C-alpha cells in the first residue's frame, strides 16, 4: 500500500542511478540509520551491546568483505579467518611499535597488511578455480594459524601468542564504554558499506560479476581476469582485515590466534550463504542470523526440552547447535539458494503490487 513508486519520475540519469532510486527505500534507510546512531546507544543495555550488537556490527563488516570475494567475484574462500587474523595482528604491530599512532590509521594499516596477504594467497586463483581454489585458500588459514603461534616477532615475543591492547581512543574520545565501541564500529561499517555498494555498482564490480558468471567469456570481451580477481581479493581482504582488527581491538581486547581459527572462516561463509550471495543487505541478514541464533538456541533449547520433560546439558546444546546449523545450511541451499536477501526482495516485489498480484 505504501511501498509503491507511482509518480516518482526520474528526469536525469543521475536520479536514475542513485543507490536507492525509490523514495520509500531512502526514507527507510534514513530511519534505520537514525535509529542505529541516535536511539540504540540510549536504549540498549550494556549486555545487549557487548553480547550482540558489537559482534553483529563487526561480523557484518567481515561478511561484507567475504561477499565481495565469494558473492560478487565467485572465488570461494575458506581463508577469511586468516585475513581477519592478519588484519588484527597487523594493526596490533603498528599500534604497539609506533607509540602515538592513532587508532584509525592503525586499523587501516592492519587492513593493508591483510590486503597484501590476500593478494599473495589469491595468486593461485589465476591458475585454479572453484573447488581447487577453496582448498588453496585453506592454506592461508593454516599458514596464519601457524605464523601467529610460532613466529614470535608478530606477537612481540609473548609466549602463547596472546596479546592485548588498551587505552583506545579516536580523536581524543576514549573508546571504553560499550556505547562508544558500538558507535565506532557502526561508523566504520556504514562508511565501508557505502563504499562497497558503489564499488560493486561501478565498472570494477561489473568486471567481478562477469568473471563470476563465466570467466572465459569475460576474458574474451576484454576483462583482464588477473586484474579482476586480484582486485577482488585485495578489496575483500582489506575489508575483512579491518573487521578482524576491530574484532580484536574493540570486541575482544585481548586475543590469541585461536580467535581466528578455521571455524571462523566457515561461519563467515555460512553468513554469506544464508544472507545471500552477491548482495550487500545479505551480509547484514546473514551476520544477524548467525550472531543471534546461538544465543536464541541457548535460551530456547532448555525450555523446549523442558516441555518434553527432558533435561538438556550445555554439551547437548552445543551439539544441537551444530546440527541445527548444518541442517539450516542445507535447507537454505535447497529451498532458498539466494538467501534471506532474496526473500526480502521478493517481499518488496510483492508489496509493490499488493493487493493486486498482477
Amino acid at each position, binding site marked *: 500500500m505504501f511501498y509503491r513508486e507511482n509518480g516518482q519520475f526520474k528526469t536525469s540519469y543521475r536520479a536514475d542511478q542513485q543507490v536507492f532510486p525509490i523514495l520509500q527505500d531512502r526514507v527507510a534507510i534514513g530511519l534505520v540509520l537514525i535509529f542505529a546512531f541516535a536511539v540504540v546507544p540510549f536504549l540498549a543495555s550494556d549486555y545487549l551491546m557487548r553480547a550482540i550488537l558489537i559482534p553483529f556490527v563487526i561480523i557484518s563488516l567481515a561478511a561484507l568483505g567475504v561477499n565481495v570475494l565469494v558473492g560478487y567475484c*565467485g572465488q*570461494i574462500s575458506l581463508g577469511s579467518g586468516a585475513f581477519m587474523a592478519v588484519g588484527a595482528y597487523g594493526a596490533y604491530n603498528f599500534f604497539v611499535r609506533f607509540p602515538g599512532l592513532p587508532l584509525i590509521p592503525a586499523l587501516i594499516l592492519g587492513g593493508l597488511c591483510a590486503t597484501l596477504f590476500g593478494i599473495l594467497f589469491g*595468486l*593461485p586463483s589465476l*591458475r*585454479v578455480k*572453484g*573447488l*581447487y581454489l*577453496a*582448498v*588453496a585458500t*585453506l*592454506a592461508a588459514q*593454516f*599458514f596464519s*594459524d*601457524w605464523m601467529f*603461534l*610460532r*613466529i*614470535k616477532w608478530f606477537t612481540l615475543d609473548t609466549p602463547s601468542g596472546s596479546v592485548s591492547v588498551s587505552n583506545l581512543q579516536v580523536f581524543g574520545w576514549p573508546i571504553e564504554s560499550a556505547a562508544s565501541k558500538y558507535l565506532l564500529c557502526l561508523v566504520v561499517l556504514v562508511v565501508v558499506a557505502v563504499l562497497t555498494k558503489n564499488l560493486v555498482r561501478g565498472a570494477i564490480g561489473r568486471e567481478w560479476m562477469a568473471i563470476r558468471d*563465466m*570467466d*572465459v*567469456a569475460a576474458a*574474451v570481451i576484454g576483462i583482464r581476469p588477473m586484474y579482476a580477481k586480484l582486485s577482488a581479493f585485495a578489496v575483500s581482504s582489506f575489508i575483512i582485515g579491518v573487521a578482524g582488527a576491530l574484532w580484536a581491538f574493540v570486541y575482544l581486547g585481548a586475543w590469541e590466534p585461536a580467535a581466528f581459527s*578455521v571455524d571462523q572462516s*566457515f561461519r563467515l*561463509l*555460512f553468513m554469506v*550463504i544464508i544472507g545471500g550471495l552477491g548482495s550487500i543487505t545479505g551480509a547484514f541478514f546473514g551476520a544477524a542470523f548467525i550472531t543471534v541464533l546461538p544465543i536464541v538456541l541457548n535460551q530456547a533449547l532448555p525450555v523446549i526440552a523442558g516441555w518434553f520433560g527432558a533435561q538438556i546439558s550445555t*554439551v*547437548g546444546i552445543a*551439539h*544441537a*547447535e*551444530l*546440527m*541445527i*546449523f*548444518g*541442517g*539450516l*545450511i*542445507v535447507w537454505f*541451499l*535447497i529451498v532458498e*539458494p539466494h538467501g534471506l536477501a532474496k526473500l526480502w526482495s521478493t517481499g518488496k516485489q510483492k508489496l509493490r503490487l499488493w493487493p493486486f498480484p498482477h
Partner: protein
Amino acid sequence: MAFFLETLFGGLMVGMLYSLVALGFVLIFKASGVFNFAQGAMVLFAALAMARFAEWIPMWTGIESRWFANVAAFAVAGLVMFAVAWLIERLVLRHLVNQEGATLLMATLGIAYFLDGAGQTLFGSNIYKIDIGMPKDPIFLLDKVFEGGILINKEDLYAAAIAAALVALLSLFFQKTGTGRALRAVADDHQAAQSIGIPLTRIWVIVWCVAGVVALVAGMIWGSKLGVQFSLTTVALRALPVVILGGLTSVPGAIIGGLIIGVGEKLSEVYLGPYVGGGIEIWFAYVLALVFLLFRPQGLFGEKIIDRV
C-alpha cells in the same frame, strides 16, 4: 641414515592413512562431481559408531569375545553408514541435482556440521577407544646393516596392510562387477550413463555407501591409533591437499598423493622444522599442494579440463 629411513617409513605409514581418507573424497567426486567436505565428519561418525557399538554389543548380548564384538560393531557401524548415505542422497543431493560445484561443496559443509553434532549426540563426546587387537610392539628391521636397526611400529604395518587390502578390494569392485562398471560409466558422463538406463540416484547411494565404508575403515585405523575423538575431523582437513596433489578424479592419485604428503610432512618437520620454529606439519602439505597447483592445476593424475566459450 637409519634415522632418515625411519622417518621415511613413518611418513609412508601416515601417508597410507591419508590416502584412505582421500580415497573417500575421490570416489564421491568421480561419481557425482561433489567435493565432499563431510568426509572428515563421516570418518568421525563411523569411528564413534564403531567404538560405541563395540562397547554396547557385549553388554546387550552377553557375549564376551572381543573378536565377536569388533566384527559385530563393524557390521552395525557399516549399516549405520549405509543409512547415512541413503539419507544424504534422499534429503540433500536429490534436491541439488544440476547445481554448481560450489553449492554442493557448501551443502556438504552443512552435512559435515550436522554429522558432527548428530554423532556426538548419539554416541557421546568423550574420547573412546577402538581396540581391534593390533599388536603395538615395535619391530626392528635391517639390524645387520645399521646400528640398532630401523624401528617400525607393528601397528603401522597392520594398518598399511588393511588399507592396501581395502584399495585392492575397491579396484576389484570397480573393474570386475557390473555395479562397478556402472559407477565408472557415471563418472565418465552422467547424461550418457543415464541414457543407457543406469539409475543415477541409485549409483549415488552406492557411491556414498562405499565412501561410508572407506570412512569406517579409516576411522577404525585412526581410532585405534589415536583414540576416537573430535580431532579426527581435522584428519580430513589434512587429507585435502592430498586430493589436490593427486588430482580430484584419480584413485591412484589419491594413494600416491597421500604417500607424498605423508613423507613430505614428516621429513619437513624433522629436517626443516627446527629452523622455523616447528609445527610446520600443519601447513606444509597445503603449501606443497599450492605450489604444485601453480605448475599443474589438474594435479598429478587429474584430467585436464579445457574451457571453451
